[in-house]
């Protein structure tokens, strides 16, 4: 009997009689939709970029004057000449040389800055220096470009070091791009190094390690994934940097490996050509997109390599 009555009771009260009337929260749904749209914007824009690049790139390769093998292997890039040549190698080479020079400058400076701020500087000095560093990241790149062209090349490279460089040269462009990306590298690397638990440092100090040994043998390896992320971010910026190289490195697509001479990067070509006098729909116009697509692939590959690298070498400390 008792069981029966329990069962009938269980079926009895409605949810409403216990919890009150259910409310429909429309506001929550609106907010969720708005936030989703915000998150989706960057994805949609990325897809849009790929589609627009890919469309024009396909149109470029459909052109009679262009062949895929000639594009990939040709050593001459003269898209606007009456007898146009579309070998992208000079542009890729220019990009790689300038990025390489930039990284040679930025990696030691960036990691050194990060190590100083994280391991050596007093809290006061650190809180004063870090905003200055981040301020440097906010200087417009066009300022860096003219700094390279009007000061660094004539006064430092020619004047101080007595080098035989052209007015427009890859070396100045690369070095100044390197300076430009130091804040990026340093800031990300410093965050990673500061995040290394104090207990690891204490363990090393407790074994009689000096500050340098703690930094080099414990903190840097433990923060390697973050440091690498900083370098990759810096490298991506260097590959994509336009203004400095456009202004300081010249616009001569060359296969010469000598950074003292002028050279043209992929971005500089896009920037210079996109400025104006190329008729829309012409092969030269489409070439902009083909180069852009190649640039896109390059950064994609760079990121993929670095992700693999980080997975492989990072030291998980928790």
């Amino acid at each position, binding site marked *: 009997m008792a069981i029966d009555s329990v069962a009938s009771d269980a079926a009895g009260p409605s949810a409403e009689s216990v919890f009150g009337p259910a409310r429909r929260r429309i506001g929550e749904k609106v907010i969720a939709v708005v936030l989703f749209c915000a998150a989706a914007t960057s994805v949609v824009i990325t897809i849009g970029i790929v589609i627009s690049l890919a469309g024009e790139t396909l149109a470029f390769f459909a052109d009679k004057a262009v062949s895929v093998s000639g594009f990939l292997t040709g050593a001459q890039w003269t898209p606007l000449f009456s007898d146009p040549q579309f070998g992208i190698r000079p542009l890729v080479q220019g990009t790689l040389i300038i990025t390489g020079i930039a990284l040679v400058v930025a990696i030691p400076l960036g990691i050194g800055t990060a190590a100083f701020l994280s391991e050596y500087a*007093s*809290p006061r000095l650190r809180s004063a220096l870090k905003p200055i560093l981040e301020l440097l990241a906010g200087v417009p790149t066009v300022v860096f470009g003219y700094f390279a062209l009007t000061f660094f090349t004539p006064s430092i490279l020619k004047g101080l070091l007595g080098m035989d460089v052209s007015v427009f040269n890859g070396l100045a462009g690369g070095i100044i791009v390197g300076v430009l990306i130091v804040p990026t590298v340093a800031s990300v690397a410093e965050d990673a190094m500061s995040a290394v*638990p104090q*207990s*690891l*440092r*204490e*363990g*090393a*100090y*407790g*074994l*009689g*390690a*000096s500050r340098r*040994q703690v930094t080099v*043998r*414990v903190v840097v*390896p*433990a923060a390697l994934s973050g440091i690498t992320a900083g370098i990759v971010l810096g490298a991506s910026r260097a590959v994509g940097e336009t203004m400095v190289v456009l202004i300081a490195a010249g616009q001569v697509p060359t296969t010469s490996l000598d950074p003292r001479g002028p050279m043209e990067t992929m971005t500089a070509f896009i920037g210079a050509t996109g400025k104006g006098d190329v008729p829309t729909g012409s092969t030269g116009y489409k070439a902009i997109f083909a180069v852009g697509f190649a640039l896109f692939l390059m950064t994609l590959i760079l990121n993929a390599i670095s992700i693999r690298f980080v997975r492989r070498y990072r*030291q*998980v*400390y*928790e």
Partner: protein
Amino acid sequence: MVGDVSDLDPASDPREEPASRGVPGQVPAVPAGQVHAPIPAVAHDDVIDDAIENPVFITEKLSVSYGTSPAVLDVSLRVPEKQITAFIGPSGCGKSTIIRCFNRMNDLIPAARVEGTVRYHGVDLYGNEIDSVQVRKRIGMVFQKPNPFPKSIYDNIAFGPKVLGMKGSMDQIVEQALRRASLWDDVKDRLKDNAFGMSGGQQQRLCIARALATNPDVLLMDEPCSALDPISTGRIEDLMHELKETVSIVIVTHNMQQAARVSDRTAFFIVDMGSSEEARIGRLVEYGPTSRIFTNPHDIRTEEYVSGKFG
């Protein structure tokens, strides 16, 4: 408490006064007058006068402050050689702060200021010509939470010897250190594995092995078992008994029973509640042979603490 007292080996400290020796299985009666008499900050009989012949450390009026607020005041004691000395007391009593003076670990905290003296084999550790890095090469430390480096087991042990530029076969040094920490049989087949794959107890023994690899004279242990389960704790305590043949050990512990089980001498610290919340100052209350501290404490605060009345 009773069971712990019976664990003590009364013969472990021959200098101990006969009267203070605990009777196993029974908490001895303490003469009432002695307990309730007004007490100096420190029961100095054991601190200065006790016949510790070859002290590793002698502290005199050692005080540490962080910024403007003192953390621990006027600690004077002698740490004997090749014995285990335990620092016990409630949280915030400064026991960890004091142990960190012994290898100048407090140097890493910019706001920390150390006053008074710490002598290590007679040498002033805070003297002008002393290099704190050199100090830490002689005086190893094991921390509260196991803190192996994110490297292989082998590289963890080899870190200290490499930093010190020790000569000889690194394989041998690593094996010997792991054997001393009775970890060799557990890990000899996976020396290249990451140390983070080990259990917490193994990680802590790895940290002990890491500290032993540089052949330190002293091992400082700052609550080494507080993050471990009872079985791992027991293994580390067994290990400490083996190690005291060759190294002097100072252990900070929350756990009175642990102090009673492992140590030869015990120092009891207390938090002195000042006028305000911030003015909490650690002080050394009493120091002496462990068996006496646990069975016949001279200070009522020690007695209350070891009998579980507070803390």
